[in-house]
């Protein structure tokens, strides 16, 4: 289901395009396909809210390795990058998904690891939601993408179209959004991601792009199973 060539996949994009959702779902699907050990690296030092690390407890229960900050610092608004991050380049034992922080400044952190990325091939997939600022036109999307690539020192190798308006998403919204993402011709389109609630088998077969069905991970605190800022004890909404 996941067309994985290189072992390393970097997920980036403008703020709020759905990078973290995609990164976690990618890790979950790789795990479901038995490509263990799967590692998810949260490099988001930009925004404390809605980061992969908040799912760390559940992912680790499944056997997915999550690397973010130095232990105990997951809730601090400090970079505190774990030295363990370098280890995932050295131990070549399974797929690694890197969740970069939003926009070009999120990319900066990847640059810090550029020696690691130079040591083996990697995907660098840009998540595009044409309903978000900085993604609304092809020009804006490319401009942001090139900034990210430059700051991360990693050329973009593909796009994941993630057109949605959260709960107001409809099949039309998805189709129209995909068409707008396709106006970006500089990078190959790898996947169309569709939230499971809006996915009907076969409904998007005519679009000529593999569909990645994702389940919402980063839920609001008031939603069942929503994410609290609880960190270590991994408290969930009742």
């Amino acid at each position, binding site marked *: 289901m996941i067309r994985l060539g290189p072992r390393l996949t970097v997920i980036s994009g403008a703020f709020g395009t759905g990078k973290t959702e995609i990164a976690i779902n990618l890790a979950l699907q790789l795990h479901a396909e038995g490509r263990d050990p799967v590692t998810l690296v949260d490099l988001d030092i930009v925004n404390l809210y809605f980061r992969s690390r908040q799912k760390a407890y559940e992912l680790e229960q499944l056997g997915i390795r999550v690397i973010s900050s130095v232990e105990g610092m997951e809730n601090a608004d400090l970079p505190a990058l774990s030295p363990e991050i370098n280890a995932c380049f050295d131990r070549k034992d399974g797929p690694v998904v890197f969740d970069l922080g939003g926009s070009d400044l999120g990319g900066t952190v990847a640059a810090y690891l550029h020696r690691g990325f130079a040591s083996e091939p990697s995907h660098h997939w840009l998540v595009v939601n044409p309903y978000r600022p900085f993604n609304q036109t092809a020009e804006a999307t490319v401009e942001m993408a090139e900034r990210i690539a430059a700051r991360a020192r990693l050329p973009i190798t593909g796009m994941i179209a993630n057109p949605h308006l959260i709960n107001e998403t409809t099949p039309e919204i998805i189709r129209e959004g995909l068409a707008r993402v396709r106006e970006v011709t500089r990078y190959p389109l790898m996947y169309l991601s569709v939230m499971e609630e809006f996915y009907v088998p076969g409904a998007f077969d005519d679009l000529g792009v593999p569909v990645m069905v994702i389940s919402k991970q980063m839920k609001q605190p008031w939603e069942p199973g929503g994410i609290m800022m609880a*960190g270590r004890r991994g408290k969930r909404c009742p």
Partner: protein
Amino acid sequence: MKVLMKGNEALSEAAIRAGATLYFGYPITPQNEVGEYMSRRLPTIPGGAYIQAETEVASINMVYGAVSTGRRAMTSSSSPGISLMMEGISYLAGAELPAVVVSIMRGGPGLGNINPEQADYFQATKGGGHGSYRMIVLAPASVQEMTDLTVLAFDLADKYRNPVMVIADGNLGQMMEPVELKDSYPNNYDHSAWALTGAKGRKGHTITSIYLDADEMEDYIHKLYRKYGEIERVETRHEEFLTQDADVVIVAYGIVSRVVRSAVELLRAEGIKAGMVRPITLWPYPKAVLRKLAETATFFLACEMSMGQMVEDVQLSVEGRRPVYFYGRSGGNVPTPAEVVAAVRQRM
């Protein structure tokens, strides 16, 4: 022996005699006498220090540093300056440090004027700073109380490891009345378990207000609120004047309570059964007293030198059982007894 002192001087001398020989502040009218008095007295006292800070922001943080050594220290200011101290007050509450802040209110908002007002009630009692915290707020009504409540403020601060504010208006700061001061006031609090005095022969102490984990932070806030609950139970203070048979209960604090006392006498002379409740602690607020009087009184009148701030606590206390009216003056105008009498008559 009684001496004739200005409110600002009296509270300063009381603080010194309570052992607070460290003062940090920045000039602002109408509380300049505090800094002036301290700058004269403290350098002559062994271990005493007076610093005119660069800002009120710095003053409150100097207090934060000084009290973290376990010693008594204070600052004072007036409305705009107290606004600047709110960050530091929140940190003091968060780090559970004892400190006394004196607020001599003036007119506002903005630069306003230097006339007396009581419009910083919300600022003092409802937060003002950030986060879930409470500050004990004491409201003297005479120069004698400026001294007594300042001494009490240091005791409460030490007892609960919490910032305490003494709040008064410009009148109380500026007026002179005879006061009686003791030579010294006891300070029996032992802070050696946490004070920063150098880690000689023990593990290092740390003073901080950071709790990264949501659950740890919540546990800590709950701990603070258990303390606040205890303070509400034990430390609520008020004064009643002719309330036993009162149909009309006038609620006023600070200087306005003096006006209201005169008004109550005038009303009684006219045959109107009026009485007064004067909150001495503005937080914790004497809710239970007002709640009880709501069973017998006809109505309540809150009287303030503001556009109505404490009146909301009267309403909360009375819980809708009786009408609560408001009479206030602002800009530096002090209500007169005649005005208060008229305000009561209008509601009869």
